[in-house]
Every structure is written in C-alpha cells, then in structure tokens.
C-alpha cells in the first residue's frame, strides 16, 4: 500500500497537465480532438462512443466525417486528418479503417494515417483483414473493438435453433473482412460436415458490389438446399439486408441468421450479436487509455465484448413457422413483439 502511494506521488509531476487534471476530476482546459469517420452516418456505436466521454467528464471535441458508403472519399479524409492532426481517429468498420490506416504489412505513409492513434469499432476480422498482425499486440498505433462472436459459436447457435446440413451466405468480394469470414466458414464447414454455399454480390460498372440480382442470389441458395442464410459482418450486405436480402429469404421460408445487431434489426430470425452502443463505449474506453492514460495504442490489444446477446425475432419466427426451442426462452432476448411493424 505504502509503496504504491509513493510511486503515485513520484509519478504525478511527470504526468502532463491534462492527464493530471483528468485524474483529479477537473475539466481539461483544452478538449481532446477526435476525428470520427463513419461509413453510413452515425449509429449506436457513435452514440456509445460519445456518451462514454460525456459520462466521465472527459472533454472531447469530435469532428464527424461520413463517407456515405463511398470508399472513394477516404483519401481526401486522410489528407484532412494529416493536416489537422487530431489527437485520435475513430473509424467505423473494416473498409473505413483500412482506408484510413491501411494494412499493417504494406506501409505506404503517403496514403494513410501512420502517426496518429486510430481506434476502430466493428471490425469483424482485424487480423484476417490485415489491419493488425496480432490482436494481442497490434504493433502499430491502431487498435479497437471487434463485435462478432466466434464463428464456431454462431454455427452452433443456428444448430441449436434448427439443425442443418447446408448453410448459404452472401458476401462482398471487395470486403476483406467478409472474405476472411467466408474462408473460416468453409474451413469449419469441412471439419463439421456442413456444406457451405457462398454467392458474391454482383459488381456494378465501377467494380463495386451492387444490389442488382441480390434477391435472385438468395433464391439460388435456397434452391441449392440452404437451410439457413448466414449473414456475415459485411458492410455492403448491411445496407441491403432490410430492403432486399431478408425479404427475399422470408418469402422463401429461409431463416436468416445475423452476425451483427444491424443485420438483426433488418429482420433476421436469429442473431448472436454485440450491442453497437456497448461496442462504441468499449472503443471509447480504449481511446481514453490512449489519451488520458498515455498507453501507446500499439500496446493495447484488440478485443471483443465478453457478452453477446442471443436475439430472436418472434414475429419472424411466426411467419416462418419456426418457433424457438423452449430452452432458448431461458437466455434469449425476444425482439419480435417489441419491434412488430416498426422495422
């Protein structure tokens, strides 16, 4: 006890003024400057992120930037960040994070932010996508929060609800996270004797994935015997799930499984998800460690929330005639009756 007190005293003068004030609970005269880059406007992640600082009285000034689903806007934002030199950058999703920070193994300082700490949210496969070499030791000032449960657990959850031999999946070939998940899914499928049917979204003239024919792809998966539609953490899929993909599956009586909260709210039957709000709060906690705690971002591990919500949409279950097994009433969060019609 005594020794620790001494250390604290000895360390105090060495802390920067801002941190000392934050530790003492007082207001920091100049707020931390944070650039937050989103993919399709602010979500619960950003709300959780901002609320975390507000609740702790940590003054931050957040500059919101959105690319409106268009990765072509990212280079301009990189220029802006390098010019304005904020204290930290927060990024939403794999595509945005890669556009801002680049791959860890292909450094091109001219094109990416290299010397300002980046904290990401909602990157499903940070190692598979090449953002960090190792989740335990990022090795560069990029860290953040993953939001997806282990794929093995997701597959088991589907089987617990409704046993299956064949699973279908739609994915965007230009999204590294989606490709990483597909590879893992195929490997797991081989070891467990589950057939995996995968269909990429079609590309438009500029090579970007397109919603055209997405409903037809779902029909093909169903015709080939898919018993579940697995919806991976795919940014483009997230934008098409509610209006195109899930309705197509529902019409065929094909249950859809959601790997993210956003996909769940698009009308999936079942999901094992992290709450976006909590993901944002966890990301803010990591940002606080970097800003006030002076821990180098390179030494902060990438983590997943330890708890996931098993969500079941009871209205969808009724429509599909696939009511949840009795066991799941013990631990599932039933979202159907609460959200009836509102989706």
């Amino acid at each position: 006890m005594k020794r620790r007190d001494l250390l604290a005293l000895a360390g105090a003068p060495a802390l920067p003024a801002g941190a000392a004030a934050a530790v003492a609970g007082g207001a920091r005269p100049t707020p931390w400057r944070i650039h937050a880059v989103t993919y399709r406007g602010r979500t619960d992640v950003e709300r959780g992120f901002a609320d975390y600082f507000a609740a702790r009285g940590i003054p931050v000034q957040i500059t919101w930037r959105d690319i409106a689903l268009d990765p072509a806007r990212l280079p301009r934002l990189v220029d802006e960040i390098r010019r304005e030199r904020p204290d930290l950058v927060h990024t939403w999703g794999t595509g945005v994070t890669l556009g801002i920070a680049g791959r860890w193994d292909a450094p091109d300082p001219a094109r990416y932010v290299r010397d300002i700490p980046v904290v990401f949210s909602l990157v499903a496969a940070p190692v598979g996508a090449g953002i960090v070499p190792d989740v335990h030791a990022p090795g560069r000032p990029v860290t953040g929060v993953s939001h997806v449960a282990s794929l093995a657990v997701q597959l088991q959850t589907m089987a617990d609800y409704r046993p299956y031999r064949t699973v279908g999946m739609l994915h965007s070939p230009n999204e590294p996270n989606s490709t990483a998940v597909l590879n893992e899914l195929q490997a797991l499928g081989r070891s467990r004797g589950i057939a995996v049917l995968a269909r990429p979204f079609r590309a438009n003239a500029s090579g970007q994935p397109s919603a055209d024919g997405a409903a037809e792809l779902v029909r093909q998966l169903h015709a080939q015997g898919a018993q579940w539609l697995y919806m991976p953490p795919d940014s483009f899929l997230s934008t098409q799930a509610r209006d195109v993909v899930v309705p197509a599956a529902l019409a065929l009586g094909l249950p859809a499984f959601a790997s993210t909260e956003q996909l769940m709210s698009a009308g999936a039957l079942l999901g094992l998800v992290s709450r976006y709000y909590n993901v944002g709060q966890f990301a803010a906690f990591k940002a606080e460690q970097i800003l006030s705690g002076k821990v180098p971002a390179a030494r902060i591990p990438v983590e997943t929330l330890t708890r996931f919500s098993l969500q079941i949409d009871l209205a969808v279950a009724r429509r599909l005639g696939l009511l949840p097994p009795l066991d799941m009433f013990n631990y599932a969060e039933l979202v159907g009756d609460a959200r009836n019609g509102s989706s």
Partner: protein
Amino acid sequence: MSALPPDPQRLQSRLVATILVAVMLGMLGVTWATQRAFQELLRPELQRKAGVVGGSVGELVGKALDHGLALPELAGVPAHLDAVRRQHRELAWLALRDDAGAVLFSSGRDEGMHGVAVPLLHQGRQVGVVETQVSDAWIRHTMLEAALDLGVVFVVAIFLTRELLHTFVSVGAPPRAGAAAGAAAGASALARLRLPLFLFMLAEESTRAFLPGYARALAPAGSALSPDLLAALPIVVFMLVVALGQPALATWSERAGPRRMLLRGALLGVVGLAGAALASGVAAFVAWRGLCGLGYGMVFVAGQGLVLRHTTAAGRTRGFALFVGAIMAAAVCGPPIGGMLAEHVGPRAGFALAAVLAALACLAARGVPREAAGGADDGLAAPALRDYARVFGQGRFLWVTALAAVPAKLILAGAVFYLVPIHVLAAGGSPAVAGRAMMLYAVALVLVLPRATAWVERGVPLARLVGAGLCVSTLGGFALVLGDGVLPVYLVTVLLGLGQGLSIAAQSSLLAQVCAAEIGAHGSGPAFGAYRLLERLGNAGGPVLAGALALALGTASAFVALAGLILACGLAFALLARRMAR
C-alpha cells in the same frame, strides 16, 4: 471343590470376544435404524425435489406462454425434458399435460405411479400441468448403495475395534514371574508392534482406492504416455522399490536394528504421503510414491525382524500370524475408508489422512521396546548371485514360482490395485465403490485363509490347493463379459480373495516340499529369498501388464484378457503337477 484360578490369557480372549459381540450388536442396531430412517425420508425428499424441478420447467414454459405461444405449439420440449432428466437421474418420467389432462410432451417412462403435478398458470388461469415421477429403480439403487455403505462401515468398525482391543488388552497384560517371563516380555513387545504396524499399513492401504485415478488426473494433457499407463506408473515404482530394496534393507535392518528401521521407515512414509498429497505433477507424484515404497519396505522388513527377535522358534508361527493379521486388518479397513474420504473431500485430503495415520504409526512405534543387541538368524539375508543362478535352474522351483506365485501377484496387483479403481472410475463409479470392492477382496481372503491353512495341515495335496486357488482367482475377471457396470467388479475382487486365500498358505509349503533337496543343502534362505523377490517383481509387473491391456482393449476387456492369461498359467501348473510330483 476348589476352582483353579482362570488363565489370564483365556480371560482376555473372552473379554475381547464379548466386547466384539457387543459392538457388533450395537452396530447392527444402528445400521438397521439408519437404513429405516433413510428409507422413510428418501421418498418424500425426492418427491419434494421432483416438485421443485417440475416448478422450474413450468416457469420456463410460462415464459414462452407470456410471449404469446400456445402450449401445443411449443418447440423443442422433449429435448428440454430429456436434458432435465439427465440432470436429475432420479426422475423416471417428466411430462407436460394440457388442461384436459392429455400428454402433450414427455420424457422417460410413465411408471403409472402417483407423480407430482405442478400447475401451469398463464394469466391467472390453469392451462395444464407439469408432471414428474420419481423412479422406483432409482430409489432401490440408492437404498442399496446406502446399505452397502453401512455394511462397509459395519465391517470396518468391527475390524478396527478388534485391532484396538488386541492392542489394549495385550499391552496392558500384567507381567508374569518365573520361567515364562522372557516369553511374556516377547509377547508384550509383539503386541506393541501390532499397533504401529497396523496404523502404517492402514495409511498405505487407505490410498489404494483412489491412487490410480489421482495419478491419472495429474497427467498433463497431451503427454507422450497414455493416461492409463501413467496411472499405473506410481504403483509400479512403489512395488519395484519394495521388491528391489528388500535384500539391502534386510541387511541394513540387521546392522541398525529393526526398531530404529521401523521408526525411520514410518517417518519416510509420513514424508512421502504428505508429498503425494501436495504433488503438482505426475513426475513429482511418482517420486513421492517411490519414497513411500522405501518407507513401506523398511517398515515391512523391520516388522519381520522384530517378530524374529521377540519370538523363539516355537512362537514364531504365532508371531507371524500377528504380523499378517495386522496387515490383513489394514487391508480390510483402509481402502473403503480412503475411498469414502476421497469421494467426499478429494484425493489430496485422502493422502493427507494417510500421512496423519503414518505419523500416528511413528508415535506408536516409539512404544516398541528396544531389542537386545545382536539379532537372531532370520534366514532373511539376501541370497548371493550364484544362489539365484542355482535356484533358477531348478525346474520345480520355476514350476511353483513362474506358473503359480508370480501369476498370482500379477493378477492381484494388476486387477485389484490398478484395474478396479480405474475401471470403476471409467464406469462412472466413485473411489468409494472401488474401496468397497477392495475391501471385499480382503474380507474374502481373511475368511478363507484359516480354513485353507487347516486343509494344508490336514494334508490336502498342496499342488491341488495352489492350482485350484489360482484358477478360482481368475474366474471373476470373466464376469466383465456380462456387463460393464460396477457389480462384476465385486465378483472380481471376491473371487480373487477366495482364490488367493486358497493358495497362499499352500504355496510356501509346496515350495519347501519341491525344493527339499536345495533347502537341505543350502538352507531355506536362497530358495525363499528368490521366491519372494520374484513374487514382488510380479507385484510390480501386474499394473504394467494390466495398463498395457487396458490401453489396447479398454478396462473391461483388460480384466478378461488378464484373467485368461493367468488362467492359462493355472491350467499349465495343474497339468504339470503330476510330472513334478514324481
């Protein structure tokens, strides 16, 4: 008519017998009352528990109903009921009935008995019931288990009481004057030896039921040796130390004096058992067991030496009977006590208790009187190498040892000390069950041994007793063909006890008979030294053989294979008997 003063020795025996009978009657009464009380309390208690389980199922169903589901459309109900029944093995039947009484979902078998019905309420209205029935078979099984436990406690209590009475009565006997004084002093010294010997053997025996399972659990994941073989290793090392240490220890005992050796051996036992209780890995555990083996060997040799020093040639048989009696009593009491303790408190606590018992043995050993300097010639001196060479060259010696004595030890150590605890564990039984089975072995042995000794004295052909005993001891192993459960294991140990009891007494006499020429020329030392050494190596080899068989065939088939192997030896022994007798 003037009555002769009663012989104090006979008076003592009568006193012991009377107290034993009183204790037995008391125990019987307690056993009966406990069993009855248990019977009366068990069913209501299980019914109450069934009601609680039914209530929790009802609560979950209620949640589903609150979300707008109707009772008949619930999904995954039988799977849930099955899972609940797996958790609560006492339930024979679990069902959901609608408000008209029709069964909608169920798990298990409707035994048609009066079950416990918990109403299912939804929005204040009863929409059905959850019905549970307690399994009669389960109750019978539980009652049987309880009766067996009580039976074990009964037997153990009798043996313990007998042992303590022997100690108190003999040690407390008044010294007699005159010519008998020397013999009386010897008898008193032997009586004082009995308690430390019993306590020390009890310490070792109490670890038998859980030792292999404990070693198995200590095995690291992904080790090169299979867990089955690792479980055999501590027994093998222990037995090897005992076997190979014996000759050197015998010499040492002569030089240092058996009393001192007894104390040091017991102390080593305390250290070894305490170390085993704290061992963090298999290697450390095996090392501690090796130390225990050294302690055991020292106590054993010292015990023999003390018997020899405190008896004359005439009283020697009685002296050794006392020695064997203490070991047998420990073999009856140790495994079930240790097994029960390991089941309820864990094997580490079991080893801790064993260490405490060994420490008590240490204290008790201080009461053994110092012996006069210089020892009696006990014939235990280690044979020289050329003695071994000569003895091993004799066909009849090999006939008795290789085909009877060694196989008997192989099956004893392989089946009782190794396979029984491992198999019981694999079959879902507890160390207490293994301890019980081991106790049956010892009890059967204790019951048969005096009778077989009488047969030997009456002149029943020795080879016939040895051969028959060995064959009988294997029969239980074949019972494993009948089923994988725990009951055949009891058959294994009982028949092993019977068989070994039949052959043990005859075996050494037979050896003396067939090696008469050798003994006439060189004394009994070389022949019996070599015979004991081979026997003890058989003890060490048993778990290795059984472990290898278990690894290749599984524990149940290993019993059968081991039994087949030893039966073949027994039959070969019997077939050769006529030729050897010539």
